C-alpha cells in the first residue's frame, strides 16, 4: 500500500535533501520581521477573524488535540464544557481559567512558556490561572509552527501580541456593553475588566461568552504595551511544564502510548546510500516478541526514508534484541565511502594552490603588500553530531484513511506535506500531533524518523511507535560539516585591519555550493572582515548528509573569525577590546548588502559595542592575572542577537584547563522570560564548550565511527563552569536566543588559552591539540 518510489541514485537524492535544507535555513535566516502594523498584518487580521467566526472550523481544530494519545498529556484538563474560544490562541472558562495555546514545538528553548507569556501580557491575563496547552499542528491557522534559527520569538511576536490584544479588547467591549458604558472608560488587569468611574468589575470568565460575539477589532488600531508597562515579560517565570517534568509525566514523543500499540525499529545501511540485498527476515520474525519484519525501499532521500529493514515487536526490548540478530547484506553501490582523514589530507593539498573562484573587495594584493604586519594561519574543525538526549521516535497510526502521527519534530508543520507526498495521500488526510521534544539543536528540522514512522504505520495494523536506538542517532544524523580555513590578514602601521583573505575548503552534496551548514552566512558578523577582502571556497564531495546544528555556520565561522581577529590584534600589539571596537565601528558599506535587508534585525554597531564593553567590564578585562591564567573575549552577531562573551581560565603544564569564570552579555531586545533566557545562555555556552573541547565524529568507509556517548564525551557536571549572564534590554524587536549565545564561546576560549599560554589553538575540538577540561 505505501506508495514509495524506488530510489533513484543516492547522490541525486542527497543533493535534493541538501538543497531543501539550505532553502529552509535561507528562509529562516532571511525571516523578515515587519513593524507591528506592517503589511503582513493583513493575513493575521483575517486569520484572527476567521478563528472566531469560522466557529465550526475552529471547534474541529480543537477536537484534534493530543488527548487521544491518552496519555500523552496525562492530566491535561478537559476543556470546560462552556469554555469560550476567543481566537485560536485564547479560550476562557466561566471559572476564569484562561487557556492559552502555544503554537510552536517545545524543544527545551522555553517557547511553550514564552509564547504564552507574550499572549498573556497583552491579554492582561492573571498568570496564576493561565493554563498552557500545545496548539494543534495546523499552519493554515497558526502560520509557521517550526522551531529553528532562533526565529520563534521574532516571528511570533506580532501575531501573539495581537492575539492577546484583540481578545482583551473584545472582553472589555463585552463588559462595557453589559454595563452600558463606553469601552474607553474600562480597563483590564489580571483577568478582570474594571469600569474605572464606578469601580464595577467583571471577570474574563463572566464576559467571555459575550466577548466572543464582539466584532474582532482591527489589530492595527490597538495600542500594544510599551516595555515599561510589562507585568509579566522580563520577569522570572517558571516553565509551564515544570510540574509534569519533575513528576515524570508522559509528555515527550517517546512517551506516547496507545491501546494495542506495537513497537518498531528501522535499520539502514551503515554506509548511507546503501540498499538491502537480502536480510534474514524469516529468522527475525520467529524471535520472541517479534510481530513482523519487512523491507522498505524508501525514497532514497536521507530526510525521508532510506532503504532498510523494519522490525515490529510487542515491546521496545524485543525489537532492539531482534535488531542485534538482524543480518543484512547491503548493496553499497553509490553509497557513502567517505573518509574524513582522507578529506583532511586533500584539503591541505587544495590549500597549496591559489583558490578559484574568488570574490574580491578592494585591491587585496595591494593591501597585503602595504601591510605593516601580515599574519597567515590555518584553522580546521571536526564533524560533530547533535545527539539530543531523547533518541528519535514518532508514533503513527493509519486508520480511516488518515495517517495520524505523534512526533517530537521541530518542523511538524512541514511534516504534513512531506508525509502526504511520501504516502501519496491528501494533506487533509495527515494529522500530526506535536509532542514535547527531548532536545532539538537543529536535528529535528529533518523529519526522517517521522517519515519512517508513517511508512511503517502504513504496513502495520493499529498504532506503532518507531523507536531509534542511540546507535541509530549516531549513524544517521545530519551532521555539522567539518571545514578548513586558510587565512591571511594584514594590519597597517596604526594597527588597523586593512586586508583579509579567507580560503574555505568545505564539502558539497553536489553542485557548486558548500553543504548545508558548511558555508558562510551573509547576515552574521564578522563575515567580511576588512576594507580589502578576498573570499574563496573550494569544495570536496561528501555523501554523509550535513545539516543545521545550533547556530549553523556561525558555530564554526565565528570561532575562526574571532580567533584570527585576536591573532591580528596581537600582531599589531593592541588591546583586543579596543581593536574589536574599532573594527565594529568601521564603515560597513562594502559588506552591508544582504546582511540585514529591510525589516530584518540587522547588525547594529552600537548594540555590538554595548555588549562588548559591558562584557569587558563585568569580566574585569585588563585586570592583573597570575602566570598561567588568561582571559579571552569575543563578539558575534548571529541569528539576530548581539552577544559578547569573556572567559577567564588557567592552563596547567598538562594542558588541563580550569575555567574560573565565563561572562556573557546579550542584547536580544526585550527579554520575554528572564529565568529561561538565563538558563538558555548558560546552556548554550556549556554546549559550546562541550563541542569545542571534546566532540568529534570520525568517518571511515562511509561509516560513522562513534556509536554511543562512550565515544562522544558530552560535557558533564564536573567540567561545567559557572556562567554569569547579563542582558542589555532594549526596545529593538526581540531576537531569539538559542543560537546567538553559542558562537562567541569558542573564540573567547581559544583567545583565553592564548593569553594564558602563548599557544594558539587552531583545531577544533581542542582535545586534538592536547587540551582537556
Amino acid at each position, binding site marked *: 500500500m505505501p506508495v514509495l518510489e524506488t530510489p533513484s541514485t543516492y547522490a541525486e537524492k542527497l543533493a535534493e535533501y541538501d538543497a531543501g535544507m539550505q532553502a529552509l535555513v535561507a528562509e529562516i535566516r532571511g525571516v523578515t520581521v515587519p513593524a507591528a502594523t506592517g503589511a503582513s498584518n493583513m493575513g493575521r487580521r483575517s486569520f484572527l477573524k476567521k478563528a472566531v467566526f469560522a466557529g465550526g472550523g475552529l471547534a474541529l481544530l480543537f477536537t484534534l488535540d493530543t488527548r487521544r494519545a491518552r496519555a500523552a498529556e496525562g492530566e491535561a484538563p478537559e476543556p470546560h464544557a462552556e469554555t469560550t474560544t476567543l481566537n485560536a490562541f485564547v479560550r476562557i472558562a466561566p471559572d476564569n481559567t484562561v487557556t492559552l495555546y502555544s503554537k510552536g514545538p517545545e524543544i527545551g528553548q522555553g517557547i511553550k512558556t514564552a509564547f504564552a507569556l507574550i499572549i498573556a501580557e497583552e491579554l492582561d491575563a492573571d498568570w496564576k490561572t493561565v493554563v498552557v496547552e500545545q496548539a494543534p499542528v495546523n499552519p493554515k491557522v497558526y502560520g509557521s509552527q517550526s522551531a529553528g534559527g532562533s526565529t520563534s520569538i521574532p516571528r511570533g511576536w506580532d501575531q501573539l501580541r495581537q492575539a492577546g490584544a484583540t481578545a482583551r479588547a473584545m472582553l472589555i467591549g463585552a463588559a462595557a456593553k453589559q454595563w452600558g458604558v463606553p469601552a474607553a472608560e474600562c480597563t483590564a488587569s489580571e483577568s478582570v475588566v474594571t469600569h474605572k468611574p464606578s469601580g464595577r468589575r467583571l471577570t474574563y470568565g463572566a464576559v467571555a461568552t459575550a466577548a466572543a460575539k464582539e466584532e474582532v477589532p482591527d489589530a492595527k488600531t490597538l495600542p500594544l504595551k510599551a516595555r515599561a508597562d510589562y507585568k509579566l515579560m522580563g520577569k522570572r517565570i*517558571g516553565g509551564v511544564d515544570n510540574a509534569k517534568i*519533575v513528576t*515524570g509525566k508522559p509528555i515527550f514523543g517517546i512517551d506516547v502510548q496507545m491501546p494495542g500499540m506495537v513497537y518498531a525499529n528501522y535499520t539502514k545501511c551503515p554506509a548511507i546510500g546503501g540498499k538491502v540485498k537480502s536480510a534474514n527476515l524469516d529468522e527475525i520474525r520467529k524471535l*520472541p516478541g517479534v510481530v513482523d519484519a519487512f523491507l522498505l525501499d524508501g525514497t532514497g532521500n536521507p530526510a525521508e526514508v532510506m532503504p532498510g529493514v523494519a522490525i515490529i515487536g510487542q515491546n*521496545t526490548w524485543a525489537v532492539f534484541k531482534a535488531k542485534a540478530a538482524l543480518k543484512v547484506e547491503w548493496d553499497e553501490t553509490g553509497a557513502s565511502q567517505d573518509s574524513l582523514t582522507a578529506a583532511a589530507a586533500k584539503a591541505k593539498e587544495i590549500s597549496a594552490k591559489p583558490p578559484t573562484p574568488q570574490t574580491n573587495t578592494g585591491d587585496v594584493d595591494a593591501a597585503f603588500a602595504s601591510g605593516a604586519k601580515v599574519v597567515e594561519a590555518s584553522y580546521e574543525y571536526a564533524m560533530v553530531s547533535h545527539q539530543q538526549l*531523547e533518541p528519535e521516535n514518532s508514533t503513527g497510526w493509519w486508520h480511516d484513511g488518515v495517517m495520524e502521527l505523534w512526533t517530537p519534530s521541530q518542523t511538524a508543520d512541514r511534516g504534513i506535506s512531506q508525509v502526504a507526498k511520501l504516502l501519496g495521500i491528501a494533506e487533509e488526510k495527515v494529522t500530526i500531533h506535536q509532542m514535547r521534544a527531548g532536545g532539538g539543536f537543529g536535528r529535528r528540522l529533518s523529519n526522517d524518523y517521522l517519515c519512517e514512522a508513517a511508512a511503517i504505520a502504513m504496513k502495520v495494523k493499529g498504532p506503532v511507535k518507531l523507536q531509534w536506538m542511540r546507535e541509530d542517532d549516531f549513524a544517521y544524523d545530519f551532521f555539522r560539516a567539518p571545514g578548513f580555513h586558510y587565512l591571511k590578514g594584514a594590519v597597517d602601521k596604526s594597527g588597523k585591519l586593512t586586508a583579509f583573505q579567507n580560503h574555505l575548503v568545505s564539502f558539497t552534496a553536489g553542485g557548486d555550493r558548500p553543504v548545508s551548514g558548511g558555508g558562510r552566512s551573509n547576515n552574521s558578523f564578522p563575515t567580511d572582515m576588512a576594507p580589502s577582502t578576498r573570499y574563496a571556497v573550494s569544495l570536496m564531495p561528501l555523501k554523509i548528509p550535513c545539516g543545521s546544528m545550533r547556530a549553523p555556520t556561525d558555530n564554526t565561522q565565528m570561532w575562526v573569525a574571532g580567533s584570527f581577529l585576536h591573532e591580528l590584534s596581537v600582531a599589531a600589539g593592541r588591546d583586543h577590546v579596543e581593536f574589536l571596537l574599532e573594527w565594529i565601528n568601521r564603515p560597513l558599506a562594502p559588506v552591508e548588502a544582504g546582511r540585514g535587508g529591510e525589516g530584518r534585525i540587522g547588525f547594529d554597531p552600537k548594540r555590538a559595542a554595548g555588549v562588548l564593553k559591558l562584557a569587558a567590564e563585568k569580566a574585569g578585562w585588563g585586570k592583573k592575572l597570575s602566570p598561567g591564567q588568561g582571559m579571552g573575549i569575543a563578539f558575534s552577531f548571529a541569528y539576530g542577537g548581539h552577544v559578547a562573551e569573556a572567559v577567564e581560565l588557567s592552563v596547567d603544564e598538562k594542558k588541563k584547563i580550569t575555567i574560573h569564570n565565563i561572562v556573557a552579555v546579550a542584547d536580544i531586545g526585550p527579554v520575554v522570560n528572564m*529565568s529561561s533566557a538565563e538558563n538558555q545562555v548558560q*546552556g548554550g555556552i556549556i554546549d559550546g564548550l562541550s563541542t569545542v573541547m571534546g566532540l568529534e565524529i570520525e568517518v571511515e568507509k562511509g561509516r560513522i565511527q562513534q556509536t554511543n556517548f562512550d565515544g562522544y564525551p558530552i560535557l558533564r557536571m564536573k567540567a*561545567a563552569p*559557572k556562567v554569569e549572564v547579563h542582558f542589555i534590554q532594549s526596545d529593538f524587536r526581540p531576537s531569539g536566543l538559542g543560537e546567538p549565545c553559542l558562537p562567541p564561546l569558542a573564540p573567547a576560549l581559544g583567545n583565553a588559552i592564548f593569553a594564558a599560554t602563548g599557544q594558539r589553538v587552531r583545531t577544533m575540538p581542542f582535545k586534538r591539540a592536547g587540551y582537556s577540561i
Partner: protein
Amino acid sequence: MPPYKLNINKKTVSVDAVDDMPLLWVLRDVLDLKGTKYGCGVSECGACTVLIDGRSVRSCQIAVSEAQGAITTIEGLAENGKLHVVQQTWVDLDVAQCGYCQGGQILSAVALLTAHPQPTDAEIDTGMSHNLCRCATYNRIREAIHHAAGMKSAAKGDAHAGA
C-alpha cells in the same frame, strides 16, 4: 519467563517479561511508567536512573530477573501528592530546559543528598557524574542541589523563578 515480583513505588507488582528485559523497558513498556527515560542503553547518560533501596542506579543495566529491592521511580518520589523537596526545588529554580534528563537528575540528587546531606561542589561533581544533560542545565542543577540541602548556593546568578 516467570512472572517477576517487583517492588515499585511501594507497591508489589507482578510482571510478565523475558528475563533479560532491562528494568528500564519493564517500567516504560510493561508498567507504563514513562518517567524513566531511555537515552543510551549502555550506562552512559543516566536518563534511566531509578533508586533501588535509596541508591541511584541505571535501570537500562538491570535485568528484570535481578531487580531486587525497593525501586523508586520519578513517579513515586512525591508522597501523598506532595512533591519531594528536591522536586520542589527543581520547580522553584526552573532547572529544566527540554526536561528529558531531569527525572534522572532529580533521583541522582536525592541519592546524593541522602549520602551527603550538605554536599560540597566536589561531592556534587561525583554524585551527578552519571547524568548527562545535553541542554547543559548544570549551573541550575548545582544551585538546586545546594538549595535543597538548605545551603546557601556558592554559585552566583541566583535563579528564583516562581512557578
